[in-house]
């Protein structure tokens, strides 16, 4: 897994890239929770995720819950097919806010 972080119109966007599995989900988790701890709104871009396991999904759930508690905005964007099929297995595709792209999310905010 690699990741990249950028700022976009008041959001931090974390792009996860590659295989998000038990060997690196602690790193993904840290990135997500650090960002929210700093009080920043967060979008996680999953377009380049070719595999995500239940520990990766758990990191997203933690982010979602922390965002809720701290009243920050949170969403998943550009979810790859591989990631979506895991979210569906977990019945989380209806729980997480999911957007086709960062732009789409920004438009919804307007």
């Amino acid at each position, binding site marked *: 897994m690699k990741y990249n972080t950028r700022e976009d119109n008041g959001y931090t966007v974390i792009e996860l890239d590659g295989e998000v599995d*038990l*060997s690196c989900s602690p790193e993904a988790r840290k990135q997500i929770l650090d960002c929210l701890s700093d009080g920043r709104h967060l979008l996680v871009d999953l377009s380049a995720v070719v595999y995500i*396991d239940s520990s990766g999904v758990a990191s997203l759930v933690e982010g979602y819950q922390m965002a809720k508690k701290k009243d920050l905005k949170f969403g998943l964007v550009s979810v790859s097919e591989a990631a979506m099929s895991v979210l569906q297995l977990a019945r989380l595709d209806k729980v997480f806010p999911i957007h086709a792209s960062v732009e789409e999310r920004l438009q919804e905010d307007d």
Partner: protein
Amino acid sequence: MKAEQLFEIRFPAIPERLCLVRALVKRTVEVVGCSEDLGEKLVIAVNEACMNVIQHAYKGNDSGEIVLQILNNKSQIVFRLMDFAEPIDLDSVKPRRLDEVRPGGLGVHFIREIMDDCEMGHLEKGTGNYLEMRKKIG
């Protein structure tokens, strides 16, 4: 018909080996003729089962070993996973309710949803545990 062993792999019970296990399972199920969609699901199930051994049976002790046997009897593919950890409490192995959204508790659900049936037990004389997962293909 007797099940035909395709393969056995042995690897240290550490997260860094999971990507290799996935690659092997993916190629194996391709070769026995699974659809791409089913193949991806089987990879997910085996990966979660290995994770559970690493996290719960060996409790993160990285000197443990995992054995994965893959068998094929034409219409069914069988994944037999073995560890050599202390015998586990079989009753503790259950999925969480999916309507309570919380981190964790998804692996067993994934495995049961994907496979046709699973059997878990202790190896002889308390030498470890096994999980056999079966799925009809094609």
